[in-house]
């Protein structure tokens, strides 16, 4: 065997490995690794691939449940949605690449998450995006917004999967690190789901899709490091997406999946050929032999390590049953995709790579996974913040405050964004962004069922109290799904945090997971897939902790899908849940009082569940004309959404006990606003009482103004204000 030159610790350190990790490699190999081998260890043991800071904490999340077919550990999570069908979904971050090149970074993020879903046998049917940008007046923000949105649209629209929902926040805390999280939901036959374990030796390994270039080399390492002044110099690693190739890859893979040729299949995501081949071999308990000369290459003189670490997009690795090569090749050639047999599985348990007649890598596969570092990083719980008493907040005109809030960055209409997304391709979109519903609703093609999908997180709360904030993110997602009339089934997540080597940041991470775990457990809302993105900091300044939750719910009768755009004049407004006028960490406090302090609203999970199930029953029974959960901006903002969408005015009385700011804008959790026709009202109130749910008749749908206590606001003015903020900000972008 002729192995290339051995490396030393300095080289390992440059790739992000520390002394003890280096020692483990020496020990397992019994020698120093060469450049290719070191590259493989470094990406496999990067934060991005090994989850070395997060693994032990992620284990706290509940991952099983009646509906769960496959939890975390595969490319995406799988749940049973009945009728022989499964729903496969996952969310992933593409934060660093999107900051460096917003269009391509966001586009390739969408491409990557779709591959995670169709690699398991599902046809992607919906996309969502959770975006966090810096302050609107930061000089980079506009370019980032326009590039990211165009990139998300450019990719999803071209592939032909509707982008049906998302969320967008702006905060100075993201000035140096924006967040671009994309979620994909797909549907598969339950008995035809594909996994990544490449069981059995001697099976051919097929490479398909785009050619390999030097794109994104060390992308996984980059996603595991802080930004610094040198980041600009890392630019050549930017990948360019090709949605046209992705579309053909989807069709070709789904076609191949109908034959019985596939043993295992895996997309080449972060760490490309390395992680896909190692994971398939590791899970299958086999070794793998690859001849790199056969890898389709876009550039000349590529070295083995470049090929192994390249993150060129739109590529898949497939382990075939023996003798099925020509069936697979025929399909991919028809779709005009590159296809090459590059090796086979072996019974050696080793990864052996050949290049130009030399063996350039020969390492045991076990240690790459088994011995991956798993750190128990020191962490420190954040100090609890003080409760804010609504009585201490100045008194202001509620109608004027509403006008300001509805024109504020987080609250204002995101039409400028979602009109760039094809929301209707595939012709099964029942409710999407702008469709006056709390979650997107997508019909399961050819059935009467539908999926409700929502992505949520309130970083203000997580910053103020990671535990309550983590709970709240889950609960808001649950509530949004309920509000459309769907039964919440399971979630995926994307945990965006700063540098885990800092105990305060690690504390945010640990406590947010504790909160999520508690909420998911009590609500029977298991986590089936997810992604962790750490090191979101620039020059020592970390992003607000942002654990985005992507939830999926199921409704049996799509004609019952509920929203908040069909309230009618004369309907009663009913508020469910308890209101204590909680203003700590609220949008009102931030936008009106310019304060970002106070403890966030606590979440009472038992109550949340009781109210949620009551709402679900009421929707199923057809008792409401509109349903909207209360979140940012509290009662007044929820009422404004409902009024704008229904094109009706409304009237809400002042509270006898709470000051206006607390009553109209408090963000107490576990609340819904219902519109109920006069003849249903008595029944609804009685049933609520019987169910132990607080329900109060607080106002009426009427006229063309929004009246809050004794102040009013014309609907037209409100609409102009709500619709104009983002277009004005983006003007000429």
């Amino acid at each position: 065997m002729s192995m290339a030159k051995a490396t030393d610790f300095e080289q390992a350190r440059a790739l992000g490995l520390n002394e003890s990790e280096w020692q483990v490699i020496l020990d397992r190999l019994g020698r120093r690794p060469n450049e290719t081998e070191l590259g493989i260890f470094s990406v496999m043991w990067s934060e991005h691939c090994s989850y070395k800071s997060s693994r032990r904490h992620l284990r706290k999340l509940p991952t099983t449940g009646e509906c769960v077919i496959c939890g975390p550990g595969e490319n995406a999570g799988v749940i049973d949605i009945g009728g022989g069908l499964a729903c496969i979904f996952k969310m992933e971050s593409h934060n660093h690449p999107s900051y460096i090149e917003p269009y391509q970074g966001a586009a390739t993020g969408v491409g990557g998450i779709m591959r995670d879903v169709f690699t398991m046998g599902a046809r992607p049917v919906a996309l969502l995006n959770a975006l966090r940008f810096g302050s609107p007046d930061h000089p980079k923000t506009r370019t980032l917004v326009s590039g990211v949105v165009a990139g998300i649209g450019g990719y999803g629209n071209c592939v032909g999967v509707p982008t049906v929902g998302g969320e967008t926040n702006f905060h100075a805390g993201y000035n140096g690190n924006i967040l671009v999280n994309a979620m994909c939901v797909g549907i598969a036959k339950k008995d035809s789901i594909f996994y990544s374990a490449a069981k059995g030796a001697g099976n051919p390994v097929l490479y398909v899709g785009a050619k390999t270039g030097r794109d994104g080399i060390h992308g996984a390492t980059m996603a595991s490091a802080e930004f610094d002044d040198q980041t600009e110099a890392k630019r050549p690693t930017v990948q360019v997406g090709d949605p046209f190739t992705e579309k053909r890859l989807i069709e070709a893979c789904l076609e191949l999946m109908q034959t019985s040729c596939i043993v295992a299949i895996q997309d080449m995501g972060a760490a490309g050929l390395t992680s896909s081949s190692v994971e398939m071999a590791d899970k299958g308990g086999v070794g793998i032999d690859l001849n790199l000369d056969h890898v389709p290459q876009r550039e000349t003189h590529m070295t083995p390590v470049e090929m192994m670490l390249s993150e060129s997009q739109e590529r898949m690795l497939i382990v075939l049953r023996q003798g099925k090569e020509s069936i697979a090749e025929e399909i991919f050639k028809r779709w005009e995709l590159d296809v090459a047999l590059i090796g086979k599985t072996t019974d050696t348990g080793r990864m052996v790579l050949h290049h130009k007649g030399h063996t350039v890598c020969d390492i045991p596969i076990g240690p790459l996974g088994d011995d991956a570092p798993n750190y128990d990083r020191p962490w420190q719980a954040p100090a609890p913040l003080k409760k804010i008493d609504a009585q201490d907040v100045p008194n202001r005109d509620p109608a004027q405050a509403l006008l300001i809030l509805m024109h504020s960055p987080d609250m204002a209409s995101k039409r400028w964004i979602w009109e760039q997304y094809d929301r209707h391709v595939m012709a099964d979109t029942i409710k999407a962004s702008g469709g006056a519903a709390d979650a997107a609703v997508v019909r399961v093609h050819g059935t009467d069922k539908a999926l409700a999908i929502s992505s949520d997180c309130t970083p203000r709360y997580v910053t103020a109290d990671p535990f309550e904030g983590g709970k709240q993110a889950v609960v808001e997602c649950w509530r949004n799904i309920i509000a459309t009339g769907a039964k919440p089934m399971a979630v995926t997540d994307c945990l965006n945090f700063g540098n885990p080597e800092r105990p305060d940041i690690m504390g945010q991470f640990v406590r947010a997971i504790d909160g999520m775990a508690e909420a998911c457990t009590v609500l029977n809302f298991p986590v089936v897939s997810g992604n962790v993105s750490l090191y979101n900091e620039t020059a020592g300044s970390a992003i607000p902790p942002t654990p985005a939750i992507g939830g999926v719910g199921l409704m049996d009768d799509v004609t019952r899908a509920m929203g908040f755009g069909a309230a009618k004049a004369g309907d009663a407004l009913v508020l469910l849940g308890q209101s204590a006028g909680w203003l700590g960490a609220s949008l009102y406090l931030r936008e009106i009082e310019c304060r970002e302090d106070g403890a966030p609203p606590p979440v009472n999970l038992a109550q949340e569940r009781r109210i949620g199930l009551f709402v679900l029953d009421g929707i199923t029974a057809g008792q409401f004309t509109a349903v909207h959960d209360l979140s940012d901006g509290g009662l007044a903002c929820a009422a404004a959404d409902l009024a704008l969408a229904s094109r009706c005015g409304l009237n809400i009385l002042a509270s006898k006990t709470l000051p206006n700011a607390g009553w109209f804008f408090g963000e107490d959790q576990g609340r819904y606003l219902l519109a109920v026709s006069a003849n249903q009202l008595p029944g609804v109130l009685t049933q609520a009482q019987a169910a132990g749910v607080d329900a109060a008749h607080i106002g009426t749908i009427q006229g063309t103004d929004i009246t809050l206590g004794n102040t009013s606001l014309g609907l037209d003015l409100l609409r102009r204000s709500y619709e104009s903020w983002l277009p004005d900000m983006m003007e000429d972008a």
Partner: protein
Amino acid sequence: MKAIVHINPRSGVLDPQGQAVAGALKHLGFAGVLGARQGKVIELDLADIDAEQAREQVTKMCEQLLANTVIEDYSVQIEP
């Protein structure tokens, strides 16, 4: 005066457009096409200033707007 700016995908950066064009030409029977790359040309009408100044200005425009230097190279040509 005129400035002509050529903007091309950087070498090494994937160029899906160019690939598609090359593929289509081959399908149409142009067997001699080995590859294609697609770029942009932007022709600017400028108020008359001296050529060196113009080049400086247009280079600034490229850096600030016209080219995406992360993935594109550009070149500037000034014509009287």
